[in-house]
């Protein structure tokens, strides 16, 4: 089974802090993703990466950055945390699956982040 592990289940930080969320997958997947999930808004893509050191902006990248130095690890960085970044953050990974037959994404258990 695919295993996507997020470093923290719950995290509390203060406004203005630099926050790191870590995600590791054990299936040698090329693609990795960061989402945030808020009530009524569903899952929104923040950033994704299709290879080591490669990244692309998702739908809501403002206030976030990412790092992918190794294939198995994808980090989400809140440069200066703000209260509106309080949310559930989900990491996912998948094989490339170009064209028809794209491969499904597999999710971690999420990090519930509170910014005070």
């Amino acid at each position: 089974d695919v295993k996507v592990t997020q470093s923290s289940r719950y995290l509390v930080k203060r406004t203005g802090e630099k926050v790191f969320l870590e995600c590791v997958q054990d299936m040698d997947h090329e693609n990795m993703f960061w989402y945030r999930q808020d009530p009524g808004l569903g899952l929104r893509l923040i950033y994704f990466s299709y290879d080591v050191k490669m990244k692309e902006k998702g739908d809501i990248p403002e206030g976030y950055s990412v790092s992918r130095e190794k294939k198995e690890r994808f980090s989400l960085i809140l440069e200066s945390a703000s209260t509106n970044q309080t949310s559930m953050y989900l990491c996912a990974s998948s094989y490339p699956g170009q064209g028809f037959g794209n491969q499904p994404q597999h999710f971690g258990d999420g990090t519930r982040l509170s910014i005070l």
Partner: protein
Amino acid sequence: GQQLNQSPQSMFIQEGEDVSMNCTSSSIFNTWLWYKQDPGEGPVLLIALYKAGELTSNGRLTAQFGTTRKDSFLNISASIPSDVGIYFCAGHLHFPSGGSNYKLTFGKGTLLTVNP
């Protein structure tokens, strides 16, 4: 980003009843995926569909990829209390060039409550 139209938003049923939910879009999809999310957890993949008309089962769950490639449904038969959770549809959009990309488009979820 684009959203899928998922309905119903919520359902409250008695144990043993069958459940049906669906997703529709004005765009063509190459894959349809159904996920379940338990409270405080990440989404778990239930069923993946890759061909128009495909009907796939996973235990008491059955899902179909609509023949127009613009819709999908999920049925749960003989519901049990542990079926409680949020069910998401998701899919990879078809691009006019014939391909698609890594990103998933999500529905906003159906909250299922099962009364024992």
